[in-house]
């Protein structure tokens, strides 16, 4: 499969012209691995501070992934399917977070 040459990119337009090219040549794996890295870093960072709150860690990591993923999706680094997976994780973790305490 032939990819666009990097020399054809107008780099003066900023990173949002260059990053979609990286995404294209790596078949969206660049954005995918970046999102996984962000999720894992924030989750374990939260867990390091608050060891017992596992669901909270997933929720915080998924909110961060959602906001960054939304911007990445608009730029074209993350595919629609990957972003929908992030939405799924956000929904699941939100509901788990809000229903784990039984004293309403």
């Amino acid at each position, binding site marked *: 499969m032939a990819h666009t040459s990097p020399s054809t990119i107008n780099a003066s337009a900023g990173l949002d012209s260059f990053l979609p090219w990286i995404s294209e040549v790596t078949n969206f794996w660049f954005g995918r691995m970046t999102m996984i890295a962000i999720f894992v870093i924030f989750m374990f960072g939260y867990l390091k501070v608050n060891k017992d709150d596992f669901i909270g860690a997933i929720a915080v990591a998924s909110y961060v992934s959602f906001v960054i993923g939304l911007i990445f999706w608009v730029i074209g680094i993350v595919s629609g399917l990957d972003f929908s997976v992030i939405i799924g994780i956000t929904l699941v973790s*939100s509901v788990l977070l809000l229903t784990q305490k039984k004293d309403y």
Partner: protein
Amino acid sequence: MAEDGFKQTIIALVLFVTFSWLILSVAIDFGAEYGRDANEIGDGSLDIVSFEASASEVEGDAQSYRTRFESGDVDDIDDASGIFSIATDLINMITTPFSLLSQILTNIFGVPSLVINVFLGLLAIALIFGIWRVLRAGS
């Protein structure tokens, strides 16, 4: 106890619907503002054409692997596109069933994208923790 369980289920359901509406509307509105197609995220439609395209792509990939591996030549397998291409192919082979599953659910059974989002989200969480568990067992 049963009453408490029911109350919790109802609250979970209400929260799930509210959060779904909130998060999806943010994503779709923001995407629409910047000209992104939100069909994959918001809608679930009966569209056999895109499933056919996906199935043909998988078949084409499989034929390509076969030809390259049968030739037995390292240069042919590499396809002059670098080691990253091989790594991508290997991971794509693993993820192809999931991608096909989501295509089948959306395009043949017409399952709403929201349901598939949640299903794939659970699958992604399970995979991340599955890998973590394997690594911890190994260490």
